[in-house]
């Protein structure tokens, strides 16, 4: 999957949850959205992107959410 397109989508999702004053709730919101609406290959691609390139292109909240997603999906 095209990582850039997924980065844009992740940033859009994070923009919505960024209004949430509690950071943990905001991160959970983004992560839950990934898990409920994104096919596994999309999640894998984004996680792989972060592992390879860090936050490159991602907003701060989106980046934090992908890192949390990576933990959850690796069973951590």
């Amino acid at each position, binding site marked *: 999957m095209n990582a850039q397109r997924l980065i844009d*989508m992740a940033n*859009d999702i994070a923009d919505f949850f960024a*209004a949430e004053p509690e950071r943990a709730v905001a991160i959970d919101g983004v992560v839950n959205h990934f898990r*409920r*609406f994104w096919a596994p*290959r999309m999640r894998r691609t984004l996680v792989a992107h972060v592992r390879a390139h860090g936050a490159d292109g991602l907003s701060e909240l989106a980046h934090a959410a992908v890192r949390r997603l990576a933990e959850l999906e690796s069973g951590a």
Partner: protein
Amino acid sequence: MLSIKETDLGTPSSPAAQTVTLTIDGREVVVPEGTSVLRAAALAGIEIPKLCATELLEPFGSCRLCLVEVEGVKGYPASCTTPVAAGMRVATRSAKLEQLRRGVMELYLSDHPPQALAAGFGTEMERVAAALGVTQVRYGFDGRHHLDAAIDASNPYFRFDPAQCVVCSRCVRACDEIQGTFALTIRGRGFDSMVVASADEPFLASECVSCGACVQACPTGALMEKSLLETGQATRSVVTTCAYCGVGCSFRAEMRGEELVRMVPNKEGHANHGHACVKGRFAIGYATHPDRVLTPMIRAKITDRWREVSWDEAIAHAAAEFKRIQARYGRDAVGGITSSRCTNEETYLVQKLVRAAFGNNNVDTCARVCHSPTGYGLKQTLGESAGTQRFDSIRHCDVVFLIGANPTDAHPVFASQLKQRLRQGARLIVADPRRIDLVRCPHVQADFHLPLRPGTNVALLNSLAHVIVTENLYDAAFVAARCEADSFAKWKKFICEPRNSPEAMQAETGVPAAQVRAAARLYATGGNAAIYYGLGVSEHAQGSTAVMAIAHLAMVTGNIGREGVGVNPLRGQNNVQGSCDMGSFPHEFPGYRHVSDDAVRRSFEQAWGVRLSAEPGLRIPNMFEAALDGEFKALYIQGEDLAQSDPDTQHVTAALATMECVVVQDLFLNETARFAHVFLPGASFLEKDGTFTNAERRISRVRAVMRPKAGYADWEVTQRLANALGYPMHYAHPAEIMDEIARLTPTFAGVSFARLDELGSIQWPCDAAHPHGTPTMHVDEFVRGKGRFLLTEYVPTRERVNAKYPLILTTGRILSQYNVGAQTRRTANVVWHDEDRLDIHPHDAESRGIRDGDWVGVASRAGDTVLRAHLCDRLPPGVVYTTFHFPGSGANVVTTENSDWATNCPEYKVTAVEVTRVGQPSEWQQRHAASERRSRERLDHATAPK
């Protein structure tokens, strides 16, 4: 004329609960107070002759045929305008009455063409004359008459013959009272009285919108469908449901053998109550258009000619290809698309095929590109992905807030109901960049038009909520009783922040703050307030956020859970609601239950006999991305034209071109079929049984009136494909599919074809607690329990104007055409709209040297196309607008990949563009025209089966 199967009771029913007892022809009759004598008699089975009266219209009392005698009353009152009274004694038959009626009828016939009466169409005029025994005219035809009056045949669907007109005004009143267009009038006085359209213009050139209400109302045949004149009177009538917009009008398809004579809106229809529009009533010719492909075809490569094959070979080939591709590229390399143009049973089967036979959740539907944000936003806030009301709810509404919808064009029958309520005094707020018809049209004037900039819905909705909360106009008791305290408190703090005020948001929306404040006060304090919205809300980068913000407005003002209020998404296609209900989204089973829900998944696994994936599948745009990456190789598309309807056409077609097997099941060789390897002929709604679910959650029957022209209904084709894939399906009739849906979907538990036949239609949820369905949702509590508020921060779209792309393009549809135009382009509706044009404000046109009718290039970051310019001040400077009904227009070559954050619904409504005068079609259009020629050649030279 009325349907061959319907009886007409003469005047509308009375809503009164009190009854009155009277005597008619010696029989005691009990009817609601306010009922006319004419209707009371009809209800008692006593027919009184009439011409100017119909139950569709208020009584008028002009034809002087329905005269009766009332004990103690002098003279012979018209029964249509005489209300019943307790103890009234009425005689409908007497020698004097017969004499009077025969005399009146004879006068009518003295200026009526005898051959028209003998034509045998069964008009009311014909039947009344026969009932009165008037066969001769004593006066002859030598005097002044109208028999030579010119026939107006300008309208493609009906003709007006003034010689047959008795000036009863039923047509004029139908246009006024039912349709609300006020296009007809009576010109002249006395003998010179004549029905005319607009200022005595041909119907086609007039303001007439061809809804056909006048044709249906006409009792004499003066206004008559050309199809009826050409085919002759029908011999049978079948009740079915329209296949156009989300209003879901009920029709009687009147048939003569296998031939459709005409479509007559069904008076008993719960959504439309006997009304229709130019599409549903008249634009049916596509179903028998010669463009329909009726033989299955296959080809190895998309550059090959098509090869006509048997159904067996086509199905076997498609199944073998799906299996080959899954074996080579993996189980997740294939998927399917369901269609909102198909029935619930068909969409259910396609998603079942994908989940059970393909073994993944890569199923999506065209609602992805229209109302997917509605599903998401309403589920999050209210707990159910559906509108909250029935259309009739508008009758109890005091304030209508219409945002991002243009009902007079896109949902015309609802628009007529809305206009009726507005004429009764309901107030109207319109939020739309364009000055749509409802802002100002005959007898309708919006209280507020908020012409917001495209892309700023959330900013406007937040500022409306800001006013309501900060000015303490909200319903604190409702919120305390019905909504989550925590989420409301958090939202209240957010919405009260000054950055959400109309004054702060004015810079974004372009709407004066004072207007926003006044509109908010009206919505919050004007009585029953209802929100109606359309794709102008959902098709944005913040589509889902806007839907949530709309739900917030309804909750915070307590405008939900009863008649006259609520949140009303106007669905674009006939079965958008149904296709979503049926589990067409990749993350949900039927009934909007997530695939990760173990208990739900187990119920489907048990019923379907297979293991099912707990992971969401790919959405349509994700499928395209995966295809371009070489991971997605095959797609089964039922009744959807991705290559025309989806945004960024070149991106879509590039993705389709990478696939190894695209199976298109459709009526026509559509744009997507250029990239197809298998073509499976589809069946029109006239050729199959099933159900559609309209915008008000109303499930209505679709009934076959003719055999499938290609041999199979669409559900049968899906079933054959599933069987060929090795997954058994053995339904004998769509009723059995609905029975399975009902067993597996709690909100459909009480639905069956038998129950639908009994009740006419059912609004889900329908279960043991609601055996007749649910007209109004969230009455005592929300489906999710407590209503939820979310923080709807306004985030500007990334699609910004700049020096290179200084204008915003927004798109929409027009009354006479429908979506990608596959149906309406193949009807006489092209007489009103034969090309998509670019509406541009005169100021923007002048600064670019553009004149009306010039060819202009429209360039965006995604691509460019060429359209003819239409100078128009319906939209503000800086905004341009086009429709998307013709593939050659390339409207979606220009739209971008930007999409709603939650659902990937494309942001069709906001594209930054520049417009310039040009001399030739765009490169894309030239390539498209060449491709169309080649495609046509490949079809024309298709090889027949050996």
